[in-house]
């Protein structure tokens, strides 16, 4: 029953908490930007709230630095379940261009389980809205993940190559290769 209720209630009024784990402000201002008149996410019922305890989702921005690592974990624990985590921007996704320096622990997924990744440096406001709307089922996915599979050849080329190789050896042994080639050219 709870699951059904959540599925029904979630897409209409997601309250998001913006957690800056060490971002350069680029992603943060784009997140704030989606609240403003041109983008206005409140029409989807998405609201930015000040406390993780009021939130349904976390927008994580920035590489997780060493001092903020325990804090991000605490903020995540403070969000009541069910919850979603969005990693916004390249730094939150994989740590960005300083993913392995001495004060950076890496991307957001090193600290907390991330559900959705929104790429960009910084992501455009449209991308952020699309990411959140996608998670809520308001829009359809534009691309689907494709699984790559090795194609089967109609002729077994390994067998064929083996036969050719053995034939070549035989012709060589017979000393007829040169003649055959010459004939073939004619």
């Amino acid at each position, binding site marked *: 029953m709870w699951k059904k209720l959540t599925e029904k209630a979630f897409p209409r009024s997601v309250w998001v908490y913006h957690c800056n784990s060490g971002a*350069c402000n*680029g992603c*943060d*201002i784009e997140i704030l930007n989606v609240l*403003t*008149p041109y983008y206005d996410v409140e029409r989807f019922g998405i609201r930015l709230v000040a406390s993780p305890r009021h939130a349904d989702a976390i927008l994580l921005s920035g590489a997780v630095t060493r001092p903020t690592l325990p804090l991000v974990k605490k903020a995540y624990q403070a969000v009541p379940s069910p919850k979603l985590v969005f990693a916004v921007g390249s730094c939150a996704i994989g740590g960005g261009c*300083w993913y392995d*320096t001495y*004060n950076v622990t890496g991307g957001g997924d090193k600290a907390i389980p991330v559900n959705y990744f929104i790429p960009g440096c910084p992501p*455009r406001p449209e991308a952020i809205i699309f990411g959140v709307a996608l998670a809520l089922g308001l829009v359809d996915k534009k691309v689907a993940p494709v699984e790559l599979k090795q194609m089967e050849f109609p002729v077994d080329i390994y067998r064929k190559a083996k036969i050719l190789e053995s034939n070549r050896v035989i012709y060589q042994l017979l000393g007829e290769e040169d003649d055959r080639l010459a004939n073939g050219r004619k």
Partner: protein
Amino acid sequence: MSRKEELLNWLKEKLKGDLLAEDVSREKCLFIDIKKEALIETAQLLLSRGARYQVGVGYDARKSGQGLAMVHTFAFDSDALLVAIRAYTPEDKPEFDSLTPTLPGAGWSEREYIDLLGLHFNNHPNPKRLILSDDWPEGIYPLRQEVPYDLMPPAAEDVAFRLDEAPPGSSIIPFGPFHACLHEPAHFAVYVDGEEIKGCEYRGFMVHRGIEKLAATELTYSEIPFVAERICGICGSVHSVNYAQAVESAAELKISRRAEFIRTVMLEIERLHSHLLWLGVAGHLIGFDTVFMQAWRIREKIMWLAESLTGNRKTYGIVIIGGVRRDINREKAGQIKKILGEVEKDMLALEKAIVKDKAIHRRTRDVGYLSKEKAIEWSLVGPVARARGLAIDARKDHPYAAYDEVKFDVQVADSCDVWGTLVVRVKEVYEAISIINQCLEKLALIPENSPLAVELEGPIPAGRQGLSVVEAPRGEVVHYLLTGDDNRPERWRVRAPTYPNLQAVPDMLLNNRLADFPIIVGSIDPCFSCTDRVVVIDRKSASGKILSQQELENLSRKMRSKS
């Protein structure tokens, strides 16, 4: 005799044998090496001639056999002159006399190198940890050469940051690290007596990403402008322009005039969007969301403009060493002028609404008061200083890019409070629009086929110093650069404007009401990601404690039962 030579001769006369070497080859800059014993004396001499302290830079000079080095930079604003004094200390005795008792603004710079370089400063009033996280073990100094950039030592035990003791009779209210009024992680412990703020301690530097170390070990000269842009997502272009200028100064490269104008236009577009952003956030912080929405609505057009000029809304990636990557042609210039016209019109309407609103006046006037004298003492920069009647502006004082050719006024207010910073920023929006228009007119006179970027002739020699300042929307940004081998700088130091301004915040907060805390901190337009490095005001010691939730509940119940 130029002002620089005169100053050098005067210093030579005063310091005699303590002055070891000088480098006057760079225009507008003077680099001198002194004995470490004479550091304080030299700083006092410079201050007596009206210098303004900028920043301290420490680096590991063991490669050249000179131990550890400390550079302090000063600016002579009226003479367009930057002075850097450098002193060395042997590795086995990494000690300097602290400048902080003479110059409170140097406090952070010195604490920074206690953390990062293992230096020791005699007589430093508050040698606490500043940059590294609390669980970073003692004895590992990331900026030393033998420490790799990706070293991640295991956490030390007993790690909690020890806050200063609160003044008597006050309790502590913690703000942050994640807090509604702070958009970036930083921790303020505010000491309050009832509603009045009696002091404040700041523990920040949580966005320290080790960029300077990265630049000295992994990146090359031409890669750094793009990483420099990502120091800060708001004033990115400022950092990349400043870095490029520091390299150009060290390599003595002269870039084309067209590139300089394009840089100026981009810097001013950034100022426009940053000031409107601040105006919106300030409105939000005092609970006036209409201003927030309107200011950001106006700002959005500028973001679209930036996108059409550079390809990205933020982090433009337009600046490279020797010039710029994209041109502004006639068609784009027309587009810029049209949008700026709209922005100016909208801005006039918004300004009218702000100036007439009584609520904004009451929330900002006489809030966050800091006198002009204090502002000089803390060496404040940017709109925060200009709101205190100090007419300092790097664009006017140390002209760079194309600012020597455009006409503009340095906007000054004398109310010394948050209202003053608001007035200065709103006026600067109009100044920025006028500067861009002037630049576009002058750009049209320069032939369109003139080169955008100039190539370097051969590698940049090692061991040369470069110093450059750029006026960011928040104030003056200083980049110090020391060239090195392997096609990368040996040391690159960034000083963001929030660095000096944030040090003065505890003074601004003093005796204000707690409800004004967000707007006072907001008034300096803090950018922790740029600053990334903590301040403490020294209060008279007494015991203070943080109330637990249970205690707070008990207290409120007691109060309720009383009433």
